[in-house]
C-alpha cells in the first residue's frame, strides 16, 4: 500500500514543470565541469584536480562577488583561478611528465586546503555564513511564455543558457576546426601530432587552461546561483561524478549534455525525495544515490568505452 502511494507521489512529481526546471538548474554545474574534464581528457590529460578546482572556483567566485557586489566579476575570478590551476596541472603532467593520477589528486588537495584557508582568513568563523544576492532568472522574451517549454528552458539564470550554448560550441570546435582536430590528435597519438607540426605541449596547456576555467565556473555557479553562499561541502563529490560522466558520454560534448541531464534528474529527484521524507528512510541514503549510480554506470559501460588512446601517457619529445 505504502509502496503504491509512494509511486503515485513520484509520478505526480515527475509531471510537474518545476521539477524539470530544477533538473536543468542542478545539471548545469555538472555539465560545465564535465565539458571541462572532457576537454582535458581529449588532449590526453586526466584532470583529477576537478573536485578541488571546482571548490576553489566556488570560494573565489563567492568572495569576489561578496566584496565587489558584482556577480560577473566573481564569475571572471572563478574562470581565471580555474585556468591557473589547470596550467599548474599542466606544468606537472605535461612539462614534467609526472603521474596524472597523483598530480591531479595533489591539485585537489591543494585547492581544497587553499579554499578553506582563504575563506577562514576572509570571513572568520561567523555564526551565520554570509550570503550574496544570487543570479536572477533571465526570461527569454517571447519564448519564456511557451507552455511547459518556457519555464523549463527559457526562464533560467544566464549561466544555464551559457552552459547549454557551450555544448554545440565545443562540438563545433572539436569536430569542425583545425584547433579541435589537432587537440584530438594530441590526445590520441601525440607523436603523430608532433610530426605533423602540432605543438603538443601547447595544445595540452590550452586544453587544461580552458578545462580548468570551466571547472572553476561550475564551482562558481554553485555558490553564486544555486546555494547563494559558500560552504565547505559545496562540491561534495560533484567533481568526481563528472569524471565518470565523461566516460558515460564517451568523450563527446553532445552525449555529455545527455549524461549531465540524466544525473541532474537523479540529483533533483533525490533532493525532492529527501525533503518529502519519502519511504521513511534516513536522508543520507538519498545523498548516496548519485554515487551508487555512477559506480553502476561505470560498471555497465567502462568495458566498451574507448578513452583517448594517449590518456595518462606523458609525452616526452626527446628520449631514448
Amino acid at each position, binding site marked *: 500500500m505504502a509502496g503504491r502511494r509512494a509511486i503515485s507521489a513520484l509520478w505526480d512529481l515527475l509531471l510537474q514543470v518545476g521539477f524539470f526546471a530544477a533538473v536543468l538548474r542542478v545539471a548545469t554545474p555538472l555539465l560545465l565541469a564535465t565539458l571541462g574534464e572532457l576537454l582535458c581528457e581529449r588532449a590526453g590529460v586526466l584532470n583529477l584536480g576537478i573536485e578541488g578546482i571546482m571548490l576553489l572556483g566556488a570560494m573565489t567566485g563567492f568572495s569576489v562577488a561578496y566584496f565587489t557586489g558584482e556577480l560577473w566579476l566573481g564569475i571572471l575570478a572563478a574562470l581565471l583561478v580555474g585556468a591557473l590551476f589547470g596550467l599548474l596541472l599542466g606544468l606537472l603532467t605535461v612539462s614534467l611528465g609526472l603521474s596524472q593520477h597523483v598530480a591531479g589528486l595533489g591539485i585537489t588537495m591543494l585547492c581544497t586546503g587553499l579554499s578553506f584557508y582563504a575563506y577562514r582568513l576572509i570571513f572568520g568563523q561567523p555564526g551565520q555564513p554570509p550570503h550574496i544576492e544570487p543570479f536572477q532568472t533571465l526570461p527569454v522574451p517571447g519564448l519564456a511564455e511557451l507552455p511547459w517549454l518556457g519555464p523549463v528552458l527559457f526562464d533560467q539564470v544566464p549561466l544555464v543558457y551559457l552552459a547549454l550554448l557551450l555544448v554545440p560550441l565545443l562540438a563545433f570546435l572539436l569536430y569542425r576546426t*583545425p584547433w579541435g*582536430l*589537432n587537440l584530438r*590528435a594530441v590526445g590520441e*597519438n601525440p607523436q603523430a*601530432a608532433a610530426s605533423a607540426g602540432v605543438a603538443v605541449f601547447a595544445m595540452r596547456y590550452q586544453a587544461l587552461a580552458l578545462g580548468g576555467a570551466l571547472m572553476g565556473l561550475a564551482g562558481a555557479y554553485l555558490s553564486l546561483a544555486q546555494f547563494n553562499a559558500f560552504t565547505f561541502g559545496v562540491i561534495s563529490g560533484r567533481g568526481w561524478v563528472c569524471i565518470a560522466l565523461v566516460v558515460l558520454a564517451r568523450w563527446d560534448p553532445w552525449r555529455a549534455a545527455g549524461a549531465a541531464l540524466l544525473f541532474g534528474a537523479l540529483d533533483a529527484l533525490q533532493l525532492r525525495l529527501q525533503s518529502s521524507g519519502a519511504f521513511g528512510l534516513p536522508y543520507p541514503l538519498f545523498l548516496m544515490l548519485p554515487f551508487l549510480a555512477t559506480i553502476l554506470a561505470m560498471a555497465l559501460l567502462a568495458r566498451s568505452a574507448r578513452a583517448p588512446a594517449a590518456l595518462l601517457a606523458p609525452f616526452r619529445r626527446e628520449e*631514448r
Partner: protein
Amino acid sequence: MAAPLLELSGIDKRFGAAHANRAVDLRLDHGEILGLLGENGAGKTTLMNILFGLYAADAGTIRIAGQPVRIRHPADSLAHGIGMVHQHFHLVDRMTVLENLLIGQPGRRGRLDRAGALAKLASLGERYGLRLAPERLVETLTVGEQQRLEIMKALYRGARILILDEPTSVLTPSEADGLFRALRAMAAEGVGVIYISHKLAELRALVSRVVVLRQGRVVGDLALTEAVTDQQLARLMCGQDLAAPTRTARAPGPTLLELQGIGAAARGRHGVALDDISFSLAAGEILGIAGVSGNGQRELAQLIAGLVPPRRGRLLVAGQILRRPTPRQLRRLGVAVIPEDRLGEGLIAGAPLAESLALARFHEPPFSRHGVLRLAAMAEFAAAQIAAFDVRSASPGGRTGALSGGNLQKALLARELAFGPRLLIAAQPTRGLDVAAQAFVHSRLLELCRQGGAVLLISEDLDELSALSDRIAVMHGGRIVGILPVAEADRTRLGLMMAGQAAAA
C-alpha cells in the same frame, strides 16, 4: 652548378654518454634517390630525426637549396618541404584518412578545409598513383596502406624532400615493388628521396648513390655501381667482415614440441586469430618462422609461452599433452622464452638487474625458501650470469633499464639459458642489435642445438632465418602457409608465401 637540394654539414648529437652522430656531412640533389646505409645503432634514425626537427642537434648546419635553415620543430621542417615516413607510423588510428592528412594544417576561415583536402587527395592519386578512400578509418587499413598514407601525408604538405626509414620491413615483396614505382615517379618530378635501409639488394634496385654511416660517422659516400661489391659495403658498414654463422647438419632427435591443428581467438584490437597450426620440432633442430610482421607470429609465441590458451587442437611439449598450459608448467618442462619486446615483456626496467634475472624463478630455490626471498642467492646468480654472458656495464644492484639493447638481450638470454632448457622460443632475438651482439646470440642458439635442445626462431630477417634454420615455416593471416627445408627456401619462394600464396611451386 646549382646548389644541392639539401646539404647537412658537421651534424653532431649526443644522448647522455652515447655519441649518436659525429660531424656528419650529407648532400642530396633534386630528383635523386639517396641510400643511407648503416647498421642498427649507426645513427641513421637519429640523423633523420634531427633533419625532421624531432631532436635538436648539438652542432652543425642544415642548408636547403643553398639557404641555411633552422629546424627546431617538425613544423619547421614541414615548412621547408621535408617529409618523413617513420619506421613506426605516426598516424592516429581512430581518425579517417582525410583527418590524418589535415592534422596540423591551417583551416579555411577557421574551419577544417575538407573540400580542399579532397581535391588535393585526388591529384596525388593522378600524379603518383597513390590512392586511398578518404573516409576510411586508419585502424582498418593494412600496414601497406598505412605506409601509403604516410607518404601521401608528406606529399600533401608539399614535401620536396622525402625521408623513408626502413620502409620495406613491414611490406611483402610485391607491396615493396609498388612503393619503388611511386618513389621513382616522385623523383622524376624533382623530389629528393633519402632511403634508409640495411638491405643491400633493395638499395641496388632503387638508388644510384649511398652514404654509409658507422658509429655515428660517415664512412663512405659512393656511387652504387656494379663494381661495388656487397662485401665492400658490408665492411664499410660493420668495420669487419661478416662471419656467417656456421650451421652443421644434425640428426634430429626426439620430438620436443608438437602442435596439431592449433587455433586461438584474436585478442585485442590488433590481434590475429591463429588457425589450424601444425608443426613439430625435434631436439637438435632450429625451426624458423618467417612472415610479414603482424601475421600471427606474436600470437604463436604467446601461445607456446603459456600466455594464451589454445581454443582448438593439441599442444604437446616433450610428449605431454597440455590443455591449458601455464608459463610455470612450461618452464618445468624445460621451455624457455625470449619475448619479442625485451624490456616490455622480459625484464623489469625499474628493478635491479638481480631481480630481473630472478623473475622467472623467484618462487623456487635457490632464489627463495618457504616464501622468503634469498637476496644473496639472487645477487650471486646475477653476478655469475653477468660474467658468463659478458653483460657490459652491469652490476646485480644496477637498474635494469640502464643497459643498452645488446646487453639487455644478453641478460635475458643468460636468464633463459641458465637452467638448461630443452626448448627455446626466441622471438626477434637480434632485432636492433649490433653485429657483434647478433653473432653472440646466434652462437648461443646454435650451441643450444648442439647440446640437444631445440629452438623455435621467430624472425622478420630472412637472412638470419636462412643462416640458422633447418626448416622455415611461413605465416600469413594467422596460418602456416607452408614449411620448407632451408635448402629449398629461396627469397622469391619465401616472398610469395609471405604474401599468402601456398607453397605449391
